């Protein structure tokens, strides 16, 4: 299983490395860059929700935390964003451990609402931040940037390195590298004894506990690991756009990512990536009727939760199993 996954991953990786040399437009490159970031967040969210069974709605808080942390380190300490990025990632891990300690022993619905409330509190604290933290010339700037967002913390230096024309390539490959690492982590966790332990916990909690499997310890581990990649994604987002705002905490964005995970297939290795791709393409195709976007997303969530709770990956798996069985019975007869 793990070899097959790695092979699939390498094929995708090779295609993604070759693609920019076929001369796509800058718009396409930027959209693909965003795809890498969202797919990273969704694969990590899938580890938390689909594998460890924690219905957290915190991913975008962690993403925002990573972005703001990187930006603040760049702005207030004037360190390079390349140094700020790993620190932001580790900071996000610490932040996620705090959230985890508060909610990992709770039942599903409580986790969902508590993490949503945390996201809302962070959002409110940022947009109501009006106190002067420092003076930028004649204007007053807030600690978090407030409604205007955090800016002027520098970038990754791709403009100097690759020039005005090709600097987006720098972001593209940074995002790709992150997604590759995040996917590798996801494959390892799902196919490793850790993934099996979670499966055991799901299938037979009493037996698993008697085998000394501590649900809480493993959940915290997965929660923290996924926070690391999510925080990095936030940092890279901040570095690319040179401004970090509370719009990353909008509910609509969170639900867009939730749809990616649910439509793709909760709990599987490739489902979340597939879901991210499908939703971004659909979104692109429906640009003309953008006002119906949210209604369509909502409908998609309802339908998948009702009829295909395992997502496209689950449906494909079912078809595959059925074909195999039919093939086997034919061979036998």
């Amino acid at each position, binding site marked *: 299983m793990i070899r097959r996954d790695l092979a699939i991953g390498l094929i995708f990786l090779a295609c993604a490395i070759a693609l920019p040399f076929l001369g796509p437009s800058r718009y396409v490159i930027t959209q693909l860059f965003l795809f890498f970031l969202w797919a990273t967040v969704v694969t990590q969210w899938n580890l938390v929700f689909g594998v460890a069974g924690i219905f957290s709605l915190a991913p975008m808080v962690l993403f925002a935390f990573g972005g703001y942390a990187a930006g603040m380190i760049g702005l207030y300490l004037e360190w390079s964003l390349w140094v700020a990025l790993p620190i932001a990632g580790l900071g996000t891990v610490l932040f996620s451990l705090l959230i985890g300690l*508060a909610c990992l022993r709770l*039942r599903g619905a409580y986790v969902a609402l*508590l993490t949503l*409330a945390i996201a809302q509190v962070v959002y409110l604290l940022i947009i109501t931040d009006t106190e002067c933290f420092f003076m930028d010339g004649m204007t007053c700037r807030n600690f978090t940037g407030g409604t205007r967002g955090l800016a002027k913390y520098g970038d990754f230096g791709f403009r100097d390195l690759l020039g005005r024309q090709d600097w987006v390539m720098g972001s593209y490959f940074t995002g790709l590298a992150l997604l590759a690492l995040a996917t590798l982590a996801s494959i390892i966790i799902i196919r490793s004894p850790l993934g099996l332990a979670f499966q055991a916990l799901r299938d037979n909690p009493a037996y698993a506990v008697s085998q000394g499997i501590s649900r809480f310890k493993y959940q915290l581990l997965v929660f923290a690991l996924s926070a690391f990649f999510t925080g990095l994604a936030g940092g890279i987002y901040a570095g690319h756009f040179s401004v970090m705002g509370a719009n990353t905490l909008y509910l609509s964005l969170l639900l867009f990512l939730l749809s990616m995970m649910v439509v793709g297939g909760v709990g599987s290795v490739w489902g979340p990536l597939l879901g991210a791709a499908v939703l971004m393409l659909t979104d692109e195709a429906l640009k003309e009727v953008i006002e119906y976007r949210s209604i369509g997303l909502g409908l998609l969530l*309802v339908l998948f939760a009702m009829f295909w709770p395992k997502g496209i990956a689950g449906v494909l798996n079912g078809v595959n199993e059925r074909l195999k069985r039919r093939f086997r019975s034919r061979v036998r007869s």
Partner: protein
Amino acid sequence: MDTFVQILVSGLTLGAMYALSTIALSLVWGSLNMLNMAQGALLTIGGYISFAAITYLGFPLFLGLVTAAGTGVLLGLAMYFGIIRFMFEKDGFETNVIIATIGLAMMMENIVLKAFGAYPFQQPFAVDGGFRLLDVHIPYQNLVIIGVSVGMMVATAWLLGHTRLGRAIRATAQSREAALLNGVPVRRIFAQVLALSGLLAAVSGVMLSSITTLAPTMGYDPLLKAFIICVIAGLGNVAGALYAAFLLGMFEAGVQYFLGVRFGFPALLLLVIIALIWRPYGVFNRRKVARL
């Protein structure tokens, strides 16, 4: 003294708003073990229906409220027959229903946005005027809200505690299998509870929007507030929710007065986290429900 009256009045008003936000969510979550994330959107639709009936159709105020309540009942039933019916007997209902209702909330909110636009309206269902107590102005509308919220809470608690339907709802909540074996038509109970919750949510939406404003996203904040009340009160404990709503209203009013408005919600969240660690079954409840 004025300060005290000021905090008391805004605390009671906030408490009433919490009670209104909580009641429908608590009923469905507590009795069907179903977290309805679309509860906020039901509040919003209730508020808008009353607005539309009174402003566009020229209904008298009271009839506007009745129209909203009726729409709430229909939406609750539609939710059962269109969505919940297909899900509640399957594995993973607890999480799948959260996802489905998140999607539903998104749809309803955006349908409201398309129908009425993002411009905030004033809820016409409101009583004008007020009176002065010491030096604090108290609008009559605040008293109406406090009265209605307490009334709905008490009525729901009575329904659950002292009627045949209430007993059947509690039985379904505590053991679906035993309820079936006692002849309780569990599916019909689900439909009835959702219809009732739609009614309560729609009326709550009218009340809430009468002292704030109507906006397509107005239901989101009450959803989170309702969660906080449910945690403190203990799930499905309607009487406890009434105390919790007013206590927390007072608490938030105090925090807002002394620390600033922006710290009201963060302080509540902190309180909830402490409560979840200290008493995961709710401060007013006996049984453990929140923890695994």
